[in-house]
């Protein structure tokens, strides 16, 4: 049972809603993932094409907790404005602070992220900042009162998986709030690995929406997150450079 702020979730997999081939595949993938939390972005409507379909038409609004992101913001102030707009919809529960500091790597801006987190907490939001795997930065976000820490595994959409397990381990170890590994997950083993490290959850999007078959990959990720969590709870064997026989050494016939 994962608890963030005043919300509890059965699933430890958070799913983004960007770039699915179409809304039907997206709907089916969301169902297969068994996620409780959906992420999306805030954008202007196209007044020249007001009949444009919207992905929410296919989604049962009562079934999920909504985590809008502040993507597009380059400053804390812009992020706060986007968060408030999202909040005005009346359907949102939390906010993902996402302030990109580099257009090429899409890595977050540590200073603006700290500032936005502080401002949104002051406004009473449930705040989940997307951050780099800088260990001290993660601690400062927690000290401000962030409800969860969301360090990236690798750059958004890169599918590089977990590049620095040591930093994630440090962040998980030091945090008393949930740690959700966000961004960079490319395949089920990456999601499983994040959970094995002790993460409380995984947030991913492109790994599912960009897969050859998003629906199947959504199920794969659901199972991967569960397997990693169970593996973490079960306690893995230590890594050794010496082999150990699984068959007994006594009673040999020869």
């Amino acid at each position, binding site marked *: 049972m994962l608890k963030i702020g005043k919300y509890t979730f059965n699933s430890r997999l958070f799913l*983004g809603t960007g770039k699915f081939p179409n809304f039907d595949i997206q709907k089916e993938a969301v169902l297969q993932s068994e996620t409780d939390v959906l*992420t*999306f972005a805030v954008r*202007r*409507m196209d007044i020249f094409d007001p009949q444009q379909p919207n*992905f929410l*038409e296919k989604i049962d609004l009562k079934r999920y907790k909504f985590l809008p*992101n502040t993507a597009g913001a380059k400053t804390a102030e812009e992020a706060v404005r986007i968060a408030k707009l999202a909040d*005005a919809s009346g359907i949102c529960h939390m906010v993902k602070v996402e302030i990109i500091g580099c257009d090429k790597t899409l890595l977050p801006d540590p200073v603006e992220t700290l500032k936005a987190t502080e401002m949104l907490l002051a406004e009473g939001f449930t705040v989940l900042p997307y951050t780099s795997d800088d260990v001290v930065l993660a601690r400062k976000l927690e000290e401000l009162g962030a409800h969860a820490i969301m360090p990236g595994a690798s750059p958004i959409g890169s599918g590089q998986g977990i590049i620095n397990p040591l930093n994630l381990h440090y962040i998980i170890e030091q945090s008393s709030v949930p740690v959700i590994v966000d961004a960079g997950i490319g395949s089920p083993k990456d999601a499983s690995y994040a959970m094995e490290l002790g993460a409380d959850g995984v*947030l991913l999007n492109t790994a599912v929406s960009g897969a050859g078959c998003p629906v199947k990959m959504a199920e794969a990720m659901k199972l991967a997150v569960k397997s990693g969590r169970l593996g973490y709870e079960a306690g893995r064997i230590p890594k050794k450079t010496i082999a150990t026989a699984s068959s007994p050494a006594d009673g040999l016939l020869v």
Partner: protein
Amino acid sequence: MEIRINGNDVTIPENLTTIQDVINHYQFKSPIIIVEHNDHILKKEDYDQTKLKPGDHIEFVQFVGGG
């Protein structure tokens, strides 16, 4: 009347006098609409009391897929 909507200067029919009128005019398909009127976010219940005047700028905002 000349107003600014989502960054575009548009001329709206004279019979549109409130935010609600404009919304009805566009018949947005999106199930969720958020409105910012002159940098001020509106509550739904204020849509039809909010009168428009020339030069107003309005943002009609929705949710789209994102991660």
